[in-house]
């Protein structure tokens, strides 16, 4: 039996999550508001955070799949390798997916903040309920649009989108970042500011959990967590800006896939870590499990930085 697993396979698997998974998460959130169910709301927030993290590899592997069908490397134009696939449809799908990723990231951030507020105050702030509904609806609409366009690529029987020669959003944004002399430099600087916020706060928490700085309270460190997540958000936006500007530098880059795997593991572990309050008790030492989780999270984040630095050396970027 022959077996193959490529980024295209991964895209075909993952692309259902941002639509179906997100719909379930958002639906549960709405039901939790109507039913005034705290447990349902917490469950829905966890789903929304998880789906928003999964949207990142969905977008990235989509570019790899597009490259197999049409070649996205260095502004290739003309018909796709497979003549049955319209290039403009691939470009429209990518543009819609980039919009979706933007709104999905904001929604995921708000959902995480809701979990943090619930853990800290026992309730999610009212303004966050409204913001999550608004951005969740926008994310779902853009995910639906991206999914519809994606379905049309391989299903001519449902194709309603007309072919066009006009440049699509993904390439407009990508070319702007790629061709402007200041955007890449500014994004790179912001990427490091985000990294500093994220790793600075997380390292302090890990050091506290390991018992090295007992004088700083969990309460003070916990209050800093939103800054770490803001840094993470900044890194996702700037990282995706790099990717949209030069996808060909990443989709054939082994170091980038390692970075992505470490990022997903670190992101999901950090969500678990911030959701689980069992580590933050001043009156008793953290459990062995909390220490292992904290140490692993730090290892994974350092790994993300390592693979990012190795993009040009182990991989073929730049």
């Amino acid at each position, binding site marked *: 039996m022959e077996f193959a697993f490529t980024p295209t396979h991964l895209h075909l698997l993952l692309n259902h999550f941002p639509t179906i998974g997100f719909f379930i998460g958002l639906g549960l959130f709405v039901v939790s508001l109507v039913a005034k169910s705290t447990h349902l709301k917490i469950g829905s927030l966890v789903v929304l955070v998880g789906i928003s993290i999964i949207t990142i590899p969905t977008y990235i592997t989509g570019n790899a799949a597009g490259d197999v069908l049409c070649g996205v490397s260095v502004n290739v134009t003309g018909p796709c390798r497979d003549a049955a696939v319209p290039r403009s449809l691939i470009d429209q799908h990518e543009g819609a997916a980039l919009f979706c990723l933007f709104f999905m990231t904001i929604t995921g951030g708000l959902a995480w903040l809701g979990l943090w507020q619930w853990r*800290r105050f026992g309730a999610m702030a009212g303004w966050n309920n409204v913001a999550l509904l608004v951005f969740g609806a926008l994310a779902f609409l853009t995910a639906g649009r991206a999914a519809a366009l994606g379905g049309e690529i391989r299903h001519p029987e449902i194709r309603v989108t007309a072919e066009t020669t006009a440049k699509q959003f993904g390439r407009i944004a990508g070319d702007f970042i790629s061709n402007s*002399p200041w955007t890449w*430099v500014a994004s790179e600087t*912001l990427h490091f500011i985000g990294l500093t916020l994220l790793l600075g706060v997380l390292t302090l928490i890990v050091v506290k959990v390991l018992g090295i700085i007992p004088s700083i309270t969990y309460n003070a460190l916990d*209050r800093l967590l939103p800054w770490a997540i803001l840094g993470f958000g*900044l890194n996702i936006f700037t990282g995706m800006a790099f990717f949209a500007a030069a996808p060909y530098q990443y989709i054939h880059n082994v170091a980038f896939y390692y970075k992505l795997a470490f990022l997903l593991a670190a992101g999901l572990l950090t969500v678990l870590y911030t959701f689980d309050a069992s580590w933050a008790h001043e009156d008793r030492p953290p459990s062995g499990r909390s220490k292992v989780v904290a140490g692993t999270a730090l290892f994974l984040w350092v790994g993300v930085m390592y693979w990012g630095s190795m993009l040009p050396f182990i991989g073929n970027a730049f």
Partner: protein
Amino acid sequence: MGTLTSSGFTPLALGSLVLAAVAGCTLIVVVIGVLIDRSAAEHERTTKDR
């Protein structure tokens, strides 16, 4: 990627543009962070008052 030599910007103009973009985005992040923190402080104060 666009380069300094091909961009038509003087180094000073380009540096100012990069600085303004970084400062602007950082300011947005700081404002959001401060608003979240103030909301948390307000919530904690209200909870304590009860």
